[in-house]
């Protein structure tokens, strides 16, 4: 008798499983869980904390807040940040001060750990939400984050 009850119970469990998939099949019109990626580019919005790439925000006067303290360079585990700096006369205070020449960011080395942004005393760098980082040439992954001609915002001290 257990022979038949086994068959019966087996078939019942199979039907149960089919009911689960069947339910989703009937509800498939309600939409899929997947996204049509390149099509929804306009509506696709990443979360504000999403770590896409490191960017350096500039204001409308082309000023950033990086003092060139190099804390990010030290904090970075992979050497993705290189700061080329110089000393120059600060036009506001008239003192000799560290000034960044180039803030070089190697996206190809970055592991998006966030330590540089965590450690930055002046919030000069932050995360950008761009996630489409593929390029055809590796050299394009090495970026200079400070814009040409940009300078330090007045009054920013580290």
């Amino acid at each position, binding site marked *: 008798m257990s022979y038949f009850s086994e068959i019966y119970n087996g078939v019942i*469990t199979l039907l*149960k*499983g089919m009911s689960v*998939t069947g339910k989703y099949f009937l509800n498939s019109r309600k939409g899929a869980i997947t996204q049509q990626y390149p099509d929804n580019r306009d509506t696709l919005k990443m*979360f504000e904390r999403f*770590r896409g790439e490191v960017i350096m925000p500039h204001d409308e006067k082309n000023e950033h807040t990086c003092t060139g303290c190099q804390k990010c360079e030290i904090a970075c*585990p992979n050497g993705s940040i290189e700061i080329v700096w110089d000393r120059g006369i600060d036009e506001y205070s008239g003192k000799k001060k560290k000034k960044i020449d180039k803030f070089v960011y190697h996206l190809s080395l970055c*592991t*998006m750990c966030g*330590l540089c942004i965590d450690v930055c005393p002046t919030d000069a760098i932050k995360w950008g939400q761009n996630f489409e980082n593929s390029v055809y040439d590796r050299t394009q992954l090495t970026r200079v984050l400070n814009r040409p001609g940009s300078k330090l915002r007045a009054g920013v001290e580290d």
Partner: protein
Amino acid sequence: MESTTIKSNFKSEEYFINMGPQHPATHGVLRLLLTIDGEIIKKVEPDLGYIHRSIEKMCERDSYQQIVHLTDRMDYLSANINNEAVCLCVEKALELEVPERVRVIRTIIGELTRISSHCLWWGVMGMDVGALTTFFYGFRDREMLNDIFEETCGARLTMNYNVPGGLMFDIHPNFVSRVKEFIAHFKTKIPEYDRLLTENVIFQKRTKGVGILSREDAISFGASGPVARGSGYSCDVRKYHPYSALDQVDFNEPLRTEGDTFARYSVRIEEMWESLSIVEQLIDNIPEGEYRVPTKAVIKLPKGEYYQKVETARGELGVYIISTGTKSPYRLKFRSPGFSNLSLLNHIAVGGKIGDLVATMATLDLVIPDIDR
């Protein structure tokens, strides 16, 4: 398998098969050297090292803040728990008391990570035994968790949310409501998992009585996590050495005594329920307070040896730091759960069929970067 004594003119011969490094069932770059007699497995030899990145050596170079992000890349499915382990160990060495808020948030995210890891495992387990649809259902539910992580921690997989001394930033304002939404959603989905796969007669036949691991063997092979608990070896670090806020919550340690593939499977399913209940207990009372204790910019641990273990989704992860008082550890050793769990594969897979091996390997829940490091 009972052996037959029929004399035959045919000579049977054992042969080798390379399973992996590119094989759908090895989930990564694990290579198994199988010795097979027909369909029956005579010997399994795991061959490792395809993605060895010498993380332990790299740790000797890095500062203690930098070590944390490397642990993301070990067992990437329980990234946050790995981070927590290193942070706990450093905090222990510094004798740093983290705020209550940090401990609760760490526990919540850790348990969510465990659920997300088990979701993925469930989907892949189904796929390994041939039910392809489970993969998408598992990933669907995992996706909600990934969104939660992304909103709060900034990344979906390699979160690096913990720092020695607390958390990198406070939880997102939406965090609590989103987690509650997930709990409500997931409570309806686990019964569905059961109906689709657990109760299925084919699945039960495939997994019951297959890959049996006795309690003694589990202990002597150093198994931990759901693999050991499926054999009746109670070894939950969360229970015996509670860390973070786990001493405040009430949960059961799922145990099975059968030791077969199905036991390991059902332990994991039950762990999802338990993790849900832990999150439920904590989510409404996240205490106010600081999310981070300031530490020195260059952390130097006092000279000595420190050990901290946590329960990841796969088992017991130990972090062993030897410090000579400099800014980076003299030696850092990770005791990863996957490595010891893989070591018993040969023991439990021999005598089974190829299909059994795949099902057994799925319930060991191997993450190869965790094994290779």
